[in-house]
């Protein structure tokens, strides 16, 4: 037990040290903090309209119904295909028009209907990482 807690404690300390000392922070999203607002997290559910499997980001568009029943098309941006494949995505299989998905992400600063997608939850409850965590602009 002592060994276990010591190992956990050492891991924690190392992680903390890494966070404090590590200026080698990473961002896969170009200028995330300039384009998106990390203080505006959103989770939205809707029907997939179309997908752009492109670099340097993939995009997918989802029809989302608001409280009053009005439908708006929202654009979601995420990893490029090389990163998506490593997260378990498959082109034309994982995400298809007509699917119902719930997407978690952050709103853009200017575009009213653009989201940086972080995670997609599918109808069967499975999830795939779609993009990087929110950046602060320090990376």
């Amino acid at each position, binding site marked *: 037990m002592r060994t276990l807690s010591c190992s956990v404690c050492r*891991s924690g300390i190392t992680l903390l040290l890494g966070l404090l000392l590590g200026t*080698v922070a990473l961002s896969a999203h170009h200028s995330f903090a300039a384009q998106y607002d990390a203080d505006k997290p959103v989770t939205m559910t809707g029907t997939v309209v179309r997908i752009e499997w492109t*670099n340097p980001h993939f995009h997918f568009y989802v029809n989302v119904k608001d409280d009053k029943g009005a439908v708006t098309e929202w654009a979601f941006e995420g990893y490029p295909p090389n990163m998506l494949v490593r997260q378990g995505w498959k082109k034309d299989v994982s995400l298809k028009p007509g699917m119902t998905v719930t997407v978690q992400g952050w709103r853009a600063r200017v575009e009213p209907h653009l989201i940086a997608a972080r995670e997609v939850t599918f109808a069967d409850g499975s999830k795939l990482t779609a993009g990087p965590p929110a950046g602060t602009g320090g990376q």
Partner: protein
Amino acid sequence: MKTHVAAWMAIAIAVLSLSGAPSAQGTTKAKPAPRAANGKPDLSGIWIATGALRLMAGEAELAAARKSDIDEGRPTPRTEPPPYKPEAEKQRQYYLDRRGIDDPMARCLISGVPRISFRPLPFQIFQMPDQVVFLYETHHAFRVIPTDGRPHPEDVEPSYLGDSVARWDGDTLVVDVTAFNTKTWLIGVGTVHSEKLRVTERYTRDSYNTIRYQVTMDDPEVFTKPWKAEEIFRLRPGERIREYECIENNEDLLRIEKLLQNESVFKRPSN
């Protein structure tokens, strides 16, 4: 007789490796770092920076990597804050206040050295007796680095990745990089430099699965002393370099142009 000697030697080696005999660094290594035919450590393989595992493979894999470093007694990489002179620090703060909107990478420009080493996309090293070749998935960049003792060419022009030549210092590959342009950031947002930048990279394969990367950025124009950073590169068995054509559908460009017209939207609020 010969057979007996060979058999005993094999048993001795097996026992030593199973007993976890401590190495020079006091670590236990299940599998020794491989060596090339010329006796030099072999850096060949597909690698990724430990910090990049978070994005590429998730938090769990990053935590496992950090734990294995602790278990193997590997020192935690330390990166000092950049020792900028006041003027250069002012520039860095300017870019930080603009939340990285000026990042050359957002325009799909190639990252320089060492920033390219820290990207969340892997790179592959091919080691040959007289040169080492780096292929980076990021920007499809490559570096062909002679290790035969030749100096930098005389006709180099300032470039994003600079010009690299290398030599072996014991078991460490030391790469000397010069002739940089000033269109790249060194590591993080706003880490500016001048054309006087000289980067020294040290690659040490300290276990089968890891390369210890120590980089010194020397630029008397912007720094009060050389800036040092460290990272552990991790071997990625089963990985392969994939395509990443950055400019294909880079909507960032249009959005950034739009944002630049209204600083109050993207800039940090001033106190």
